[in-house]
């Protein structure tokens, strides 16, 4: 557990350092994810301890967004002034993005003559 947590932190740290050094347009943790991914490819497998740590951390991934979300209290005034424009823009554009992404992917898969992942249906 401690080894895999340390490895996650090292990947994040290296990611942050590279982003800072080269002014890359991605957040440090996302680059860290890429580094760990490359590491797993080289190692050809996920060590069981890393699998457990990742599963534990990710099973409550949504909890980790709560502190940032509470920051909404700082902007209640601004949101009140423009709630209609903001609300309609957020809800509609999110629905559009979801539909466009899913339909583009499935449409192109179909064009390429590939079957959808039938064993993977909800």
């Amino acid at each position, binding site marked *: 557990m401690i080894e895999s*947590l340390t490895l*996650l932190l090292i*990947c*994040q740290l290296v990611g942050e350092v590279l982003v800072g050094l080269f002014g890359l*347009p*991605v*957040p*440090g943790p*996302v680059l*860290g*994810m*890429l580094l*760990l*991914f490359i590491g*797993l*490819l080289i190692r050809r497998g*996920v060590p069981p301890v890393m*699998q457990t740590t*990742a599963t534990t*951390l*990710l*099973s409550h*991934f*949504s909890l*980790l*967004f*709560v*502190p*940032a979300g*509470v920051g*909404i*209290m700082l*902007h209640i005034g601004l*949101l009140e002034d423009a709630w209609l*424009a*903001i609300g*309609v*823009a*957020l*809800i*509609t*554009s*999110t*629905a559009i*993005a*979801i*539909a466009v*992404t*899913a*339909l*583009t*992917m*499935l449409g*192109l898969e179909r064009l*390429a003559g*590939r079957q*959808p*992942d039938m064993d*993977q249906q*909800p």
Partner: protein
Amino acid sequence: MKPIDELWVYLATNPLLHLTLTLVAYLIGNRLYRRFGMNPLLNPVMIAIVILVGLLVATGTSYGQYFEGAQFVHFLLGPATVALAVPLYNQFARVRRSVGPLLAAIIMGSLSASLSAVGIAVLLGAAPEIVASIAPKSVTTPIAMGIAEQLGGLPSLTAVLVILTGVVGAMLGPPLLTLLRIRDWRARGLAIGVAAHGIGTARAMQVNEVAGAFSGLAMGLNALATAILLPLLWSWIF
């Protein structure tokens, strides 16, 4: 016994109280979500935020004071994002099989998320700095704040809009995808990850590992695509 107000002063300035409250509020949200058959409309993040904002406003606690305690939870976002490499690796065979459609879908999703949000906000008469703050709202928080600053928006407002978008996407996505008869877990995960970044990915992860892996991948690549494309488009449109 100490007087109660003295005890309150101690607790309110100690990180323990707000750290504990954050976990309790989330567990209440999670309990409600499960009690009602995992209805996406009862998003645990949204319930926790409503409870906590209500409590903080009622007790006159500032966000800074709250964050003293909550930062320990917030900190774990970084290592957890790195950990998304694990489900991605486990699903790599599936990802590799459809690299082309996947990348095209993410770029289309990135463009449609920002452009439709900007278009609607302009039509409804939002102020320019609100329009610029709303443009990168589908991107994960740190990078969205950077993009907003570049476009002349308010980074701290963007942070809030990003969270709201995540909650909306996690609530709206699953019923919308079912309505569109999209049953492929890869496409479902990809769509939620593009539109609703980490909060959507958290939700996808709970439902299915394939969806979770594709969602995490979409979140990362969408951040990259939007960071490159949006400032270019912006200088071209405005």
